[in-house]
């Protein structure tokens, strides 16, 4: 599948934004890390909303008719893309109220707790819908897998956790053990799921063949003699994108390093060294995770084969 930069930016930026909202809401429920008040709330929630908004704006760049994007809210009964759109919009007022409570300190623990729970539910559900857009397509073997939607959620939480650590460190000078450990757990779970995902897409059988696609298997092996056109058409440009296996393996190692190993190493170091160089470590962790998650998302598209390539000369998909 063609890796469109607008969709990569959208899913990674808003993924981290929703993940950050979840950690802010969790800390509102348990123990508040980012202190109450105007500036801390503006920095923390402002970063989350900015990432989400940049992502959503970027996703509309992918559209042929961006001015009609509002129509995408209407078909939530059947379409995961529509559900994602509805939940993405719903999350704004819910998390916005939590941010206002944070800024002005209104509402007791019950109201704040309810807003925090609603923010968590709404943000996680949005991430889940993003994953299900891909996981619900039987036409793409590497996407139609039970791990795909959980990975979208956990990667959002992991990258959001690294961001939460950065903002906390910038505001407080150092980050308490608990949120740092939570971000580490999210990174570890994401690493575990992503490794399993790559193993399963490498080992899963290619069940569809050129013979089953054309129904001509009874006559022998099917080979494409002439394509229907002299140059690549839309279907081939969009669905026929391929990445060389050895490049993909190199990029997977880059993801392992940049998305998981380096950020996790930085977080562990800052825990061990106490107030050593927490800001520098938190910055390196966030920058590395950003490179890592963008590469991960690029690979998620580039490595995915669409079944339609069977009509265009591929043997199996």
């Amino acid at each position: 599948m063609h890796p469109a930069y607008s969709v990569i930016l959208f899913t990674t930026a808003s993924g981290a934004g929703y993940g950050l909202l979840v950690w802010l809401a969790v800390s509102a429920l348990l123990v508040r890390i980012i202190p109450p008040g105007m500036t801390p709330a503006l920095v923390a929630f402002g970063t989350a909303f900015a990432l989400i908004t940049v992502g959503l704006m970027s996703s509309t760049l992918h559209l042929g008719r961006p001015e009609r994007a509002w129509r995408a809210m209407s078909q939530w009964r059947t379409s995961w893309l529509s559900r994602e759109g509805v939940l993405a919009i719903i999350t704004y007022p819910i998390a916005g109220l939590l941010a206002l409570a944070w800024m002005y300190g209104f509402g007791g623990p019950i109201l704040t707790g309810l807003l925090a729970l609603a923010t968590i539910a709404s943000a996680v559900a949005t991430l889940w819908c993003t994953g299900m857009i891909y996981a619900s397509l039987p036409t793409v073997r590497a996407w139609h897998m039970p791990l795909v939607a959980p990975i979208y959620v956990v990667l959002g939480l992991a990258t959001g956790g690294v961001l939460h650590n950065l903002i906390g460190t910038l505001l407080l000078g150092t980050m308490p053990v608990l949120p740092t450990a939570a971000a580490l757990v999210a990174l570890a779970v994401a690493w575990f799921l992503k490794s399993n995902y790559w193993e399963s897409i490498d080992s899963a059988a290619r069940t569809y063949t050129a013979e089953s696609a054309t129904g001509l298997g009874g006559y022998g092996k099917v080979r494409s003699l002439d394509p229907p056109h002299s140059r690549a058409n839309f279907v081939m440009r969009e669905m026929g994108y391929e990445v060389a296996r050895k490049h993909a393996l190199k990029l997977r190692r880059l993801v392992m390093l940049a998305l998981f190993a380096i950020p996790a190493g930085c977080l562990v170091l800052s825990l061990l060294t106490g107030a050593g160089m927490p800001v520098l470590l938190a910055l390196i962790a966030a920058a590395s995770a950003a490179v890592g998650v963008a590469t991960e998302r690029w690979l998620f598209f580039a490595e995915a084969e669409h079944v339609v390539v069977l009509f265009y000369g591929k043997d199996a998909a």
Partner: protein
Amino acid sequence: MTALPETTRKKLGLVIDLDTCVGCQACATSCKEWNTAGYSAPLSDHDPYGADPHGAWLNRIHNYEVGEGEAGRTVHFPRSCLHCETPACVTVCPTGASYKRAEDGIVLVDPDTCIGCKLCSWACAYGAREYDYAHGVMKKCTLCVDRIYNETFEPEDRVPACVKACPTSARHFGDLGDPESDVSKLVAQRQGFDLLPDMGFKPTNKYLPPRAKRDATAAGALMPVTAAIKPKGTEAGTVSAKFFAWADRVLSN
């Protein structure tokens, strides 16, 4: 709405005969010609006379080589929207621009509400939907909905443009939901089949398999080309060949 109708009163679709299709592209050309002026905005082309010509087509003809050696054959394979009974391209649509009609089962895109997100093209296993880069919306086979009900046409012309154009009658149009229709009988008689049935989209269009090859050793089979007699005097070394070679040299000077 992108929710599918529980049943459709008709199942209009095509039956494509892979035995008689000669791969002439008349259906694809006729489809492009009709639909570039019809239901939706023109089917745009890009760089048509340059190095990278491409554009939106609703019907494309593949050519496959199937089997080995003497048992091998060439199969011409037209591919367009199959107007599935449970089309994922419709249910994934976030805007409701994609829909399946309850009255006849035709799958259509409303060009006025499509946002061009391309998700339907990802959901389709058959590569039937093509994005129009100029119009910014998705294009697909309409089963010539603007021909088949067009009362200004003579009744025999109320068929899709591809069916009308086919010189070998390899394309048939009708109601595949009615077991008594000509197309349903044809499918039953020739063991018509679905493309990628395991995907579960239940295509309405059916394909008729190529018939068994005639036995090459049987009486009446064509003589192999190698045994054909070559016209005399063309082999190198004969007097006339040397003469024409000399003439060619002289005239070239």
